[in-house]
């Protein structure tokens, strides 16, 4: 029976109260551990077409008569379009249409950052479109630009009120402490730089708009476009069968979609609008910079008695303010916590969610600070973390938490310290550091799946979600195969089209598996029940003794064993249709993911070069569906995190607000040569309170603790406290000098 509930919904750490219709979920969880298909390594269902270059991405969509759009962007950090004349552009060869500010969502008269879109042209070729941009006559009125986040906060240039949190009495906690450690930490702007840039192809078919787009959320794009353009939602069809990475930056429609839709309407031709790599580095979203002024106070027995944080999220012109203080509030048992988060509105490109937004930044500050407490108290950093273990989330019980087990498994990696130190020499110092991870990842309703069983005994899972490269098709196929009782190769998963399947969640917030997985299982169970009902009638047996195992219908008494395809052959063109919905999250519980990273790093104390040599990543995300895909996720998160920590930084001219790093030689992402040994472990214990699967998400957790773990390894190796990301050579040499001064030696580095 459908049930109407009022519930809290979490996406990327944002909570809202919503009405939800959920269906009861009567399925019991499977027993823990590897099953027939679930919990066993599976090769990706769509690996072959991706590897062979057959997968058709949005970048590969070519429609007959398709035009190409180019976007005119503001050269100024803050300016207003006083006048604009598109006519000269329209007269150029190949040009078919143009739009100006106010004529498509996303094109504004006021440009709030250098790179803000203001106009666009559609032409036969992209080269013609781009050339035509130069012909647009535009007169700008320059406005004052605020580029410094702290200045912005002082002047009240902010997005909303400061976010304040307090439990206990912070001042009293500090007063009672034996040691108080303070530190200011800064994190930089980093860019998603998905290999496929943000892009859409739009085509009007009558009054229906077809959108092929590189997105993490086909339903989100459908609803946003319908709302903005005043269309009935089902007149908008959004297709994304394969997409080349998003990492949080492709959760919404984007100006490129609206530009393509409007130019397609004006020209009567399909229009493609694809960002260039340089545009991608300016105007496609970013992880915002933060400034974190942190305090930790502890008693000599290692009890943390107060934590305080004054945070500034340097958000840029748009985006949303992520919970940078989240780890400080949730990771440790501490009675007295006080945080405040300011959100600076500066004239820089807008923030978009990037893989655990806020928590990546906040964990860097907090977990560096915790190690400084350990040093001040002269206690083992791992012991300090165990001692301050949180058994509830500010009074709310966890649905499951196995962080203690993560610490247990971290011990053997942590115990390598003597051996690692012994490999140091005069120049290269080696050390070991650790950091804990906390993040969301419980997913939630609504999400739906259908199953279709044909007379050949194959099973199709149909749901309008997208596989952004995380292995979604494979994990969903495994779940359906397990529930239905067939080998994995008998299951196909059809995704990527809002007109072909029911609503499915966005591929973000580590929510895909925990949101969709239970719906897919329920849909498979529904179809299986119907098959068994038919079998009971056909063989005149009681349904309760029938089951499907390894593709055969079998009876408990052993008298019946018939291949599913043989049995279903009689159906001809008839199909068995199952449906499933995601049930509710447990009420009154915090659903969170946990983990620990132990990093071994080498530091060249003469040049400031840092090499990460080994990372042990231990994660607790409930039941693991595909251990092979899960390992790949962890490796990917760790490697992206190493980039965030050591080499990636979006640089801006502080005078003009222009972005300086717009190419992939300037914005330095990790290559295969930068990859350390990565050891990956999962607790793999189903969350008994969470859905019929007990699985949480894994996309984001592995990137959360890596920066702090690297910084703590640097401290272990050299005594240097780094305070800034990226840990550039300048920052490291500064920290080494500071450490030397602290030890009383003359600063001679």
């Amino acid at each position, binding site marked *: 029976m459908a049930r109407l509930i009022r519930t809290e919904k979490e996406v990327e750490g944002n909570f809202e109260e919503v009405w939800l219709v959920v269906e009861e979920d009567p399925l019991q969880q499977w027993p823990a551990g590897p099953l027939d298909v679930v919990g066993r390594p599976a*090769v*990706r269902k*769509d*690996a*072959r077409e*991706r*590897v*062979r*270059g*057959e*997968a*058709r*991405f949005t*970048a*590969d969509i070519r429609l007959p008569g398709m035009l190409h759009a180019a976007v005119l962007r503001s050269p100024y950090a803050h300016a207003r379009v006083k006048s604009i004349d598109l006519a000269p552009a329209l007269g150029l060869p190949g040009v078919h249409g143009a739009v100006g500010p106010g004529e498509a969502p996303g094109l504004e008269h006021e440009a709030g950052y250098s790179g803000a879109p203001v106009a666009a042209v559609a032409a036969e070729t992209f080269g013609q479109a781009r050339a035509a941009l130069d012909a647009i006559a535009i007169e700008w009125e320059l406005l004052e630009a605020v580029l410094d986040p702290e200045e912005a906060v002082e002047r009240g240039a902010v997005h909303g009120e400061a976010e304040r949190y307090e439990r206990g009495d912070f001042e009293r906690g500090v007063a009672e402490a034996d040691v108080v450690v303070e530190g200011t930490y800064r994190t930089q702007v980093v860019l*998603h*730089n*998905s*290999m*496929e*840039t943000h892009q859409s192809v739009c085509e009007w078919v009558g009054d229906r708009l077809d959108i092929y787009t590189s997105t993490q959320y086909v339903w989100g794009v459908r609803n946003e476009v319908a709302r903005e353009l005043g269309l009935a939602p089902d007149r908008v069809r959004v297709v994304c069968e*394969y*997409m*080349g*990475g998003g*990492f949080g930056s492709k959760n919404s429609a984007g100006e490129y979609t609206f530009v393509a839709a409007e130019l397609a309407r004006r020209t009567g031709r399909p229009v493609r609008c694809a960002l*260039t*790599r340089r545009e991608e580095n300016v105007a496609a979203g970013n992880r915002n910079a933060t400034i974190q002024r942190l305090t930790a106070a502890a008693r000599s027995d290692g009890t943390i008695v107060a934590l305080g944080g004054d945070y500034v999220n340097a958000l840029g012109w748009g985006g949303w303010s992520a919970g940078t203080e989240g780890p400080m509030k949730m990771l440790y048992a501490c009675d007295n916590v006080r945080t405040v988060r300011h959100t600076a509105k500066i004239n820089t490109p807008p923030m978009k969610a990037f893989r655990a937004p806020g928590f990546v930044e906040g964990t860097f500050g907090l977990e560096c600070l915790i190690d400084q407490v350990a040093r001040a108290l002269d206690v083992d950093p791992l012991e300090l973390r165990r001692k301050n273990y949180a058994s509830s989330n500010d009074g709310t019980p966890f649905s499951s938490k196995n962080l203690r087990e993560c610490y247990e498994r971290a011990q053997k990696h942590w115990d390598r310290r003597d051996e690692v130190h012994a490999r140091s020499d005069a120049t290269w110092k080696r050390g070991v550091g650790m950091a804990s991870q906390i993040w969301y990842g419980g997913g939630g309703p609504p999400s739906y799946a259908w199953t279709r069983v044909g007379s050949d005994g194959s099973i199709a899972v149909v749901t309008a979600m997208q596989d*952004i*490269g*995380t*292995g979604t098709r494979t994990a969903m196929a495994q779940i359906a195969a397990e529930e239905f009782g067939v080998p994995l190769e008998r299951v196909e998963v059809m995704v990527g089209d809002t007109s072909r399947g029911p609503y499915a969640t966005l591929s973000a917030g580590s929510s895909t598996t925990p949101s969709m997985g239970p719906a897919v299982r329920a849909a498979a169970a529904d179809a299986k029940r119907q098959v068994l009902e038919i079998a009971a009638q056909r063989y005149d047996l009681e349904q309760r003794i029938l089951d499907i195992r390894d593709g055969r219908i079998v009876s408990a008494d052993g008298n019946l064993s018939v291949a599913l395809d043989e049995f279903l052959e009689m159906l001809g063109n008839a199909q068995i249709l199952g449906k499933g919905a995601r049930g509710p999250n447990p009420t009154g519980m915090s659903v969170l993911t946990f983990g620990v990273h132990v990093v071994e790093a080498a530091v060249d104390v003469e040049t400031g070069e840092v090499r990460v040599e080994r990372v042990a990543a231990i994660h607790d995300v409930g039941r693991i569906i595909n251990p*092979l*895909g899960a*390992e*790949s996720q962890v*490796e*990917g*998160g*760790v*490697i*992206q995190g190493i980039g965030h920590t050591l080499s990636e930084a979006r640089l801006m001219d502080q005078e003009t607000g222009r972005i300086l790093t717009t*190419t*992939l*030689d300037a914005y330095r*992402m*990790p*290559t*295969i*040569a930068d*990859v350390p040994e*990565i050891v990956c472990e999962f607790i793999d214990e189903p969350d008994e309170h969470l859905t019929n699967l007990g699985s949480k998400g894994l996309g984001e957790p592995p990137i959360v603790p890596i920066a702090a773990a690297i910084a703590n390894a640097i401290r272990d190796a050299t005594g240097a406290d780094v305070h800034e990301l990226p840990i550039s050579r300048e920052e490291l040499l500064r920290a080494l000098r500071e450490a030397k001064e602290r030890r009383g030696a003359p600063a001679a580095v």
Partner: protein
Amino acid sequence: MPELRLTVNGDEHRLDAPIGTSLAHVLREELGLIGTKIACNEGHCGACTVQVDGVPVLSCITLAHTVDGDVTTIEGLRDHPLVEAFVRADAVQCGFCTPGQVVSAAALVAATPEPTTEEIRHAMAGNICRCGTYPKIEEAILHWRD
């Protein structure tokens, strides 16, 4: 327009293309060989890698009219054992960079059938993978003939 003659995956083509057209553009737009991806279009990421006479080349910054040799794209390597090796090792996430990775790897193993880890890292360092499939790519190349 000057005639462009190209041999791609063993097939000879005669095309009209303006001087200045990149090889990647010709492959994708004129020949429909969309397996070659363009991710940066300025020679920094390796997604567009093809082989010319067995040597890896960045097709997005190679002028089509300057190509003097046989071009091999991912479409010509679809039955290469590396494809199954990548699949087995899970050396693919979003897959946008993967065809370029396979093309680079195929050139490596043709010249060095049993590459060391160091040789793999040297040969593959020009192919960026933002998803971070590198450990699996290394594994796939190490075991490409298994």
